[in-house]
């Protein structure tokens, strides 16, 4: 192979991914943006990373990110989860990147399980880690068969599955990874986010990139793209709702997690998006933050 400047310089590795691999991932990302919702295969390299890190998301982030970026990492809605902390530390260490826990301050947000409650802007890119990119996997076990269905936009099998749910339970029971039709053409997995988050993908101002490391596929939802959660005329798509608000900030608009608290039998719900919750609490108690009650 012909050496390029980089290899001659001794194989530096900003963001831990070699330049050759980044090039490959970048080309796949650009194609993915041109064909919203279509899964684009990328590369075939082993990624020697600790299990559970979500190598798909990491490879996408490492290929996109640059020295001007501010990175936020969310796991299960919180920046404090072990995974999120180690991924942030990893990028700080290997790339000297600035990181933040604030949605508003981030230019690149890597996440799994949640999309921030704070609406994203055109200046932000969302990277979602995806364990299983193929929404038809449960229904069509063979990859080639699934690709044929995508080629013909033949998604009847998915509608049948959802309708069986309705026939048995009176509603679609999928709480997470609820399938979406992107730009009226490709069926896609929104990743294991609660279906509460699906509407945030519809006509978002930010680009969303989805990376599946094991399956070596990535796909994109560009900004201002129609993202429709599959439903039926007599059973329209609905998001989860709670009868109470967040016990900490009072929000009735955010996705809530149940936590154990108080005496036996007491149920308490709090925002799963910790940054959103803290921002709301700080806004209602500015004096406390000024007095040093804010985050480090």
């Amino acid at each position, binding site marked *: 192979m012909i050496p390029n400047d980089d290899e001659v310089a001794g194989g*530096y590795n900003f963001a831990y991914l070699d330049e050759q691999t980044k*090039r490959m991932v970048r080309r796949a990302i650009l*194609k993915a943006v*041109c*064909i919203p919702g279509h899964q684009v295969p990328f590369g075939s390299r082993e990624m020697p990373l600790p299990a559970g890190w979500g190598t798909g998301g990491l490879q996408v982030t490492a290929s996109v990110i640059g020295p001007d970026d501010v990175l936020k990492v969310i796991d299960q809605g919180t920046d404090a989860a072990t995974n999120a902390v180690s991924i942030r530390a990893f990028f700080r260490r290997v790339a000297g990147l600035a990181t933040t826990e604030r949605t508003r301050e981030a230019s690149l947000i890597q996440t799994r399980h949640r999309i921030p409650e704070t609406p994203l802007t055109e200046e932000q890119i969302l990277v979602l880690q995806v364990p299983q990119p193929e929404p038809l996997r449960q229904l069509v076990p063979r990859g080639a068969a699934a690709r044929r269905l995508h*080629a013909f936009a033949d998604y009847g099998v998915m509608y049948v599955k959802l309708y069986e749910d309705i026939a048995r339970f009176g509603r679609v029971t999928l709480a997470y990874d609820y399938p979406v039709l992107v730009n009226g053409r490709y069926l896609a997995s929104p990743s294991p986010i609660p279906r509460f988050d699906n509407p945030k993908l519809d006509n978002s101002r930010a680009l969303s990139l989805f990376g599946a490391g094991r399956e070596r596929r990535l796909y994109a939802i560009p900004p*201002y793209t129609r993202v429709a959660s599959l439903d039926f005329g007599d059973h329209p798509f609905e998001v989860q709702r709670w009868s109470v608000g967040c016990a900490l900030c009072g929000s009735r608009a955010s996705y809530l997690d149940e936590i154990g608290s108080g005496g036996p039998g007491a149920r308490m719900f709090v925002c799963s998006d910790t940054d959103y919750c803290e921002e709301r609490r700080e806004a209602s108690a500015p004096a406390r933050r000024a007095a040093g009650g804010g985050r480090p």
Partner: protein
Amino acid sequence: MTTAFSSPAAPPSEAAQRDQRVFRVLLRALSYPGRVVLLPALPSAPAPLCPALAGLLLGLLDLEAGLWLTPALDCPPIRSFLTYRAAVQFVATPREAVLAVVDDPAGLPPLDAFHPGEPACPERSTTVLLRVPALAGGPAVALRGPGIEATATVAPRVPYGFWDQWARNHARYPLGIDIIMTDGVGLVGLPRSVGRE
């Protein structure tokens, strides 16, 4: 080279930083079609290859991305310039190209001469890097599609007939080619998903 991740942190080389910046410009141009996105400063390249086309190419090329150069650019100095800086596989026809470079809209082959991808693999299509005399001042066209909030009006200097060809390219969606236009200073992305209003 078997591992993609290697050890200790070192600052990125100038070329790597440039590739990353150019990629983000490309990503933005294709994510928000019709908007002019400015390129970073780029080093010179042997004429008639302009720095903009050279910078875009060097950020994307490797042995898996067959490159077709328009005859006006296909000369030994440009071939060796690219070969010295990147892993390149030249291909003989637009049809075989993953990347195609055209330095003048008058020399643009019919859009259906490029590879449109395959039904199960629409990503196997050609990306055309097209130098235009200007990104404004040509026939104005309103675009609609993913990445565009309502409509986006563009007016690059392209020959008469280009937009009819583009309409046919868009009609094949999800097959079709994607075009990046540059005037040397900025980029406009034209993904196949976007059509004339």
